[in-house]
């Protein structure tokens, strides 16, 4: 199972929503698709789901062109694009049954899909009265109902309360266990870090990065740690530790230490602090590496 964009381009007048995107994601994993508003994330997903026609290039799913062999390409794909609205007079059960019939799917399980998103008890109520969060859950159930091997999800936790967001992330993590390829756009960096294995970053319609999350985290590892101790910390003494480039005294018991190397130095600083008699109760990297990478890539402020 794979998704591939070959020089995929979408242009509106003189504006490039997507410019020559080359991207291939393959195998059972979750790929986070990150970018600021207007970067071209939703455009990419719409091109992969036949909601838009490309100006140039090709979108391929399992080797089939979405534009030329749409039926074969979308056969094993479940989608959630933006927050769709539903026919208000129909119930979730009717909507998912309709979707199964449209797809001609043989492995449909309406009950399981509704249970998975926590909407089974609402199966016979008309969708028109549902909140945005509930509709988002139904939309996710619609993506899952035919048990597809590929899921294309556009900001799946949009419109949900914190509890709902956590539940949906849990659903996505569970889906990863069942050998699926999940291609998920998000503007929530924490969500991508928490759920995904790979990250692709996009800005102004151009791909900036596509790498495993671990590689990105390592490359953009934060070189500042914050230390909290039970006793007073002597900032001047810390400056003498090898590799330390800056010390910021936040309070008597808290300091922020900048260093110039990787994990080895970070560990050496901790050892030195212990030797100096500092009773460390917390020792953590400052800032989120992915956020730093993201902001650096799109030319934003990293502070």
């Amino acid at each position: 199972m794979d998704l591939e964009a070959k020089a995929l381009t979408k242009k509106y007048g003189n504006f490039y929503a997507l410019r020559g995107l080359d991207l291939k994601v393959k195998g059972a994993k979750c790929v986070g698709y990150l970018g600021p508003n207007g970067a071209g994330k939703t455009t990419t997903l719409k091109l992969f789901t036949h909601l838009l026609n490309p100006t140039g290039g090709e979108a391929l799913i399992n080797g089939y062109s979405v534009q030329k062999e749409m039926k074969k390409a979308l056969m094993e794909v479940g989608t959630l694009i933006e927050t769709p609205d539903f026919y208000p007079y129909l119930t979730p059960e009717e909507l998912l049954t309709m979707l199964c019939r449209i797809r001609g799917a043989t492995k449909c399980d309406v009950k399981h899909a509704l249970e998975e998103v926590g909407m089974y008890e609402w199966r016979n109520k008309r969708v028109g009265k549902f909140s945005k969060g509930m509709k988002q859950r139904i939309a996710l159930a619609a993506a899952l109902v035919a048990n597809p091997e590929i899921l294309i999800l556009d900001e799946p936790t949009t419109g949900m309360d914190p509890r709902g967001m956590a539940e949906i992330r849990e659903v996505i993590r569970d889906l990863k266990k069942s050998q699926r390829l999940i291609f998920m756009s998000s503007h929530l960096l924490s969500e991508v870090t928490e759920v995904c294995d790979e990250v692709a970053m996009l800005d102004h319609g151009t791909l900036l990065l596509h790498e495993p999350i671990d590689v990105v985290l390592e490359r953009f590892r934060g070189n500042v740690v914050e230390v909290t101790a039970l006793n007073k910390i002597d900032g001047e003494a810390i400056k003498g530790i090898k590799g330390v480039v800056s010390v910021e005294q936040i309070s008597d018991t808290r300091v922020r230490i900048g260093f110039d190397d990787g994990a080895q130095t970070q560990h050496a600083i901790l050892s030195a602090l212990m030797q100096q008699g500092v009773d460390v109760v917390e020792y953590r990297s400052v800032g989120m590496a992915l956020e730093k990478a993201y902001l650096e890539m799109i030319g934003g402020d990293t502070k």
Partner: protein
Amino acid sequence: MIEVHKVLSLYRFQILWHKRSMALWILLLLTLAVVAGIIFEPYLLNPRAHVSVHSVAESLSGGSTFVILLAALFLGSDALSREFQRKTAYFLLPTPVKRVTILTAKFLGTYIVSGVLLLIYFGVGAGYMAVAYHAVPVRYFASMALAYLYLASLLAFTYMFSAVFDSGAAVATLIFMIVIFGNVVIFLVENVMHIEPWFWLWYGTGIITLVYAGSYIGDYSHISLGPMGNTTYNPYIWEGILIMLGYFIISFLVAAWCFERKELR
């Protein structure tokens, strides 16, 4: 190609959708109001009026075009446009099925629901004639069959605009204007361009009432409009059928072409 088995399972959801919508029940009330109005209108002015069964049947047939217009406006105008306006297309379209299959299923569902309304309209009319006159003219049923053809052509015509515009209200207004001013267009085309506008749908629909005219069909009728007059060709039944059939096929194909290419930006 259209996948018939998917059309046959999908159109039921379109019927269900119409059944649960307020528009259908308003339309049913309007249909009953139209048929009642046509039946009782002669007696409002003169309670002792004598109206022949032939005249009642012809009036009812003429009135059916109004019911068909209402059905197209209420049920057809937003059939496709609302998919884009309300974003329901995001749920429906990214599926491994040709859009023409979805279009056909939706059309079939709307046609069946509208057809039932038309049946109620003609049924009430036939019931009234059977009770009041103990007879229903055979041509009433011929007219009814032609009305069903008109329903198909006007619905397809409406679907065509619904596939182009994102607003159902805009489509309904456009169709209403085209229908209402159709006769003005015929009049202008005839008098300004001096050609018979046989390509106009309402030229064809004339046969719904001309079916009662017998030997006059294929002749010309003269309409006076103040100081001006207008001579209009009354088509043969087969000509009217061809015009309506032509509208149905061309409109449906254009609707399918537009719907297939429409983007969800």
